[in-house]
């Protein structure tokens, strides 16, 4: 019988799925046919969340024609989600930017210009700003979606070339509190363990995360673990019942911002019932309060006295019972391995660092750490927030390799690696994100480069900051693949860039794992990789500022072709010179090693031989982490070498319950929270241009608890006005037993001026991490009409 192409593809699809289960199908011969197929497969990472799923893009005659998972990958074991399934459509999309666009004034229309003109304008404006207004009048605002090579090169030119630490990125809006939590609790950024703990855990504590929608492939692994092992307990703590809650054995629903009381109360129960691990505490733990004052166990215990389960249950709003708190504390402490996971529900808070500390406290108290199935694992939102921004020097206070800016010795190491004079990098951190955009408002930033992100939509209380971004006081360059609200409102110069798989580079995901994606297809004619753009711009800057040090910054990269040789040289400089000897040592993770891996390498990975094993699954454990040997201070099995804790201990913090910046009152009686939906990514500039994803959720809506809806006369689909002290939205109601009574919830992706929820959110920041409190503010709601026909909106 003749096999049609359709039959062949169906059998291939079936074999692919069956291979994941070790299932044999009666037509294995398709493998031979597959080998003769003209499709070339290119391995890389998915771009649409922080999980780091590995996939292969099938390319035929220069077109992306197929996708398949990589079953050997330790991140996704081959599985992909529906959002990732559609990204190929962005590669030949008719709305891709393909020409530099320029306007002298932001009220003007853009006109097309050549790349030479564009580069000259960009260099002229930044050089002019530095000459007239000083080095700190320029700024870079990047992205957790940029490749590590891109973030690294941008920050090198800004710090080493333009002599400013005004280097920031959108991970400040999502991960900064996790960084603060890890640094203050464990002495070093990023998790001790990783996804490998999922298959070993007996208790999952999921707090402030809707992983079913935001990290669906990780959710799948948790669900598989639960299904295969019915004794496994899943605890979900969240003010909103989400798709994640459906696998929970226990769901704790509480008023937003009261979870610090929950976490302290769990610690109270653990100590009261003697479920803590005294030997672990004796060997490895110090107790702290305030800004780092040392206390002892008894004083810490005393700090928990106000958090009896009964008191905590009251603080939390009364829906959670004291017995439930006791039950989850016991399960947390006594399981064979407890794995906590969270995202923005803890991070995007005024008490974000404290919330992170309090989760870490529970793991340290109980010793639910450093062993199989136990970890305190912050899930990352973006594909390269960890790799590029946290490790690569993409925030105002950290240099590449987790080096604090304010330490002179650290600056000198970087200056030496770059071959620039000592003292070239300024001694003080630059402006953090919210301070940077406040400085734009004040006209203090004269030239700004925004790469691969849209702050006009993604900043909290965005009306306030968009006023400044729209002014002509700040010349703004945007590098992106599509028009965004930021290119439209704020940019003077728009430069079209290559997309994922159209260029080469490395992403580092949640679990300290760096993974390479090589160029597989050409970008649209006219679009360029960012590394080429930055190198060309820096060349011109050096001339206009007559500054040989800027030339020195790009000298190692002169003349290299931008598709592979240039990013490879940048990665080599970064990994070999700037991670060597640091806790994020990637010396062994060369391009050659990464290209040979199905997935990638978890740092520290100081040698190629070690990197080829996959790297370090558990930090700080002797026998599993090479740095635990080289940095050991005694014979104990765990060695905490993180630079932020000179005592080599884990720190348990006494942190009280503290209210959010804004809580409901008579004028604004509801809590507002925001989040993601499975079909969309961030500001929808990509997913909103894919018909299937747009149709699935064409516009945002406000989730209202049925009891509140009844009280306010709101029916499903009614148009509801949501107003805070900062702004107003109008969107349809979804009456849904999701948010707790007294709380409403909206997705933040919608670009429409009426439904852009960041007009309503709050820009109060955590004093430590400087991360804004997107997740909680006070608002009022009212029905303004019955259902109306709405149209989706993408700029």
């Amino acid at each position, binding site marked *: 019988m003749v096999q049609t192409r359709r039959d062949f593809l169906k059998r291939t699809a079936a074999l692919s799925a069956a291979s994941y289960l070790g299932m044999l199908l009666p037509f294995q011969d398709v493998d031979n046919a597959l080998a003769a197929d003209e499709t070339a497969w290119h391995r890389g990472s998915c771009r649409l969340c922080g999980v780091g799923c590995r996939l292969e893009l099938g390319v035929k005659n220069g077109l992306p024609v197929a996708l398949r998972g990589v079953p050997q990958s330790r991140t996704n074991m081959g599985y992909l989600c529906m959002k990732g399934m559609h990204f190929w459509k962005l590669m030949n999309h008719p709305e891709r930017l393909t020409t530099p666009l320029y306007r002298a004034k932001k009220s003007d229309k853009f006109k097309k210009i050549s790349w030479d003109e564009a580069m000259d304008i960009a260099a002229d404006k930044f050089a002019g700003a530095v000459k007239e207004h000083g080095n700190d009048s320029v700024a870079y605002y990047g992205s957790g979606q940029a490749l590590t090579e891109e973030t690294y090169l941008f920050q090198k030119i800004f710090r080493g070339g333009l002599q400013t630490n005004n280097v920031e990125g959108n991970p400040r809006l999502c991960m900064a509190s996790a960084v603060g939590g890890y640094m203050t609790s464990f002495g070093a950024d990023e998790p001790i363990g990783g996804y490998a703990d999922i298959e070993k855990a007996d208790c999952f504590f999921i707090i402030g995360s809707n992983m079913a929608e935001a990290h669906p492939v990780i959710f799948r692994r948790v669900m598989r673990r639960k299904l295969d092992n019915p004794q496994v307990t899943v605890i979900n703590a969240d003010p909103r019942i989400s798709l994640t809650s459906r696998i929970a054995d226990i769901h704790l629903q509480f008023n937003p911002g009261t979870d610090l009381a929950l976490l302290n109360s769990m610690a109270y129960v653990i100590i009261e019932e003697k479920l803590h691990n005294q030997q672990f505490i004796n060997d490895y733990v110090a107790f702290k309060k305030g800004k780092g004052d040392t206390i002892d166990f008894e004083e810490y215990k005393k700090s928990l006295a106000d958090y009896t389960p009964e008191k905590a249950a009251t603080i939390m709003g009364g829906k959670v019972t004291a017995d439930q708190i006791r039950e989850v504390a016991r399960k947390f402490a006594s399981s064979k391995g407890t794995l906590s996971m969270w995202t923005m529900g803890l991070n995007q808070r005024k008490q974000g660092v404290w919330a992170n500390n309090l989760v870490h406290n529970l793991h340290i108290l109980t010793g639910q750490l450093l062993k199989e199935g136990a970890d305190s694992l912050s899930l990352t939102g973006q594909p390269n927030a960890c790799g590029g921004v946290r490790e690569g020097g993409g925030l105002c206070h950290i240099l590449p390799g987790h080096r604090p800016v304010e330490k002179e010795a650290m600056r000198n190491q970087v200056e030496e690696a770059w071959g620039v004079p000592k003292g070239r990098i300024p001694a003080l951190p630059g402006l953090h994100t919210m301070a940077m955009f406040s400085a734009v408002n004040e006209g203090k930033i004269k030239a700004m480069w925004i790469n691969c992100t849209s702050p006009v939509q993604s900043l909290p209380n965005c009306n306030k900051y968009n006023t400044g971004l729209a002014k002509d006081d700040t010349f703004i360059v945007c590098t992106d693949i599509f028009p965004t609200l930021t290119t439209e409102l704020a940019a003077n110069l728009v430069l079209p860039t290559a997309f994922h798989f159209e260029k080469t580079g490395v992403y580092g995901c949640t679990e300290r794992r760096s993974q390479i994606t090589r160029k597989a297809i050409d970008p649209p004619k006219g679009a360029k990789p960012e590394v080429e753009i930055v190198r060309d711009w820096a060349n011109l800057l050096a001339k206009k500022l007559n500054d040989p040090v800027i030339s020195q910054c790009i000298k190692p990269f002169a003349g290299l072709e931008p598709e592979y040789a240039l990013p490879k040289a940048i990665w080599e400089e970064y990994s070999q010179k700037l991670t060597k000897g640091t806790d994020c040592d990637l010396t062994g993770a060369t391009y050659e090693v990464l290209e040979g891996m199905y997935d990638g390498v978890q740092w520290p990975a100081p040698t190629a031989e070690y990197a080829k094993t996959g790297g370090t699954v558990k930090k700080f454990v002797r026998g599993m982490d090479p740095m635990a040997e080289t940095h050991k201070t005694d014979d104990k099995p765990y060695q905490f070498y993180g630079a932020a804790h000179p005592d080599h201990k884990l720190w348990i913090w006494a942190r009280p319950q503290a209210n959010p910046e804004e809580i409901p009152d008579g004028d604004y009686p509801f809590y507002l929270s925001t989040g993601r939906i499975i079909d969309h990514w961030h500001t929808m500039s990509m997913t909103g241009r894919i018909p299937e994803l747009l149709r699935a959720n064409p516009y945002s809506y406000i989730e209202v608890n049925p009891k509140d809806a009844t009280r306010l006369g709101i029916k499903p689909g009614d148009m509801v006005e949501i107003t805070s002290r900062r702004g107003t939205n109008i969107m349809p109601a979804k009456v849904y037993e999701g948010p707790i009574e007294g709380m409403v919830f909206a997705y933040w992706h919608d670009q429409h001026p009426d439904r852009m929820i960041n007009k309503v959110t709050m820009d109060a920041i955590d004093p430590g991490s400087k991360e804004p409190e997107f997740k909680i503010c006070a608002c009022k709601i009212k029905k303004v009409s019955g259902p109306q026909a709405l149209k989706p909106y*993408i700029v």
Partner: protein
Amino acid sequence: MVIAGFVVQCQPQSQQDTVVALEALGQVEVFGADEKGNIVTVVDAESSADLEKIVKKMEGIEQVLNVGLTYLNVEDEAKKIASGDLSPNPFPRKKHWEKLN
């Protein structure tokens, strides 16, 4: 033609019912299942849009816990997009960006 392979996950005890419900959707072919509730499924759809609708239906089956994509072939659609016969743009429009491009 868009062809996709999935592992559909359900509670082991509801596997038979889930297989019946999947096959009842049409365009969905089940190639096997294991004792853990994993079902090897292939969807033969007219287009990406059609596939999306079918997947939403699969996800909507009460017993289905997860629909995990393992393989996707869109070669017909990719050719049509490249030749201009099909637009992946949900907004058929002429904006200033496009005029300038």
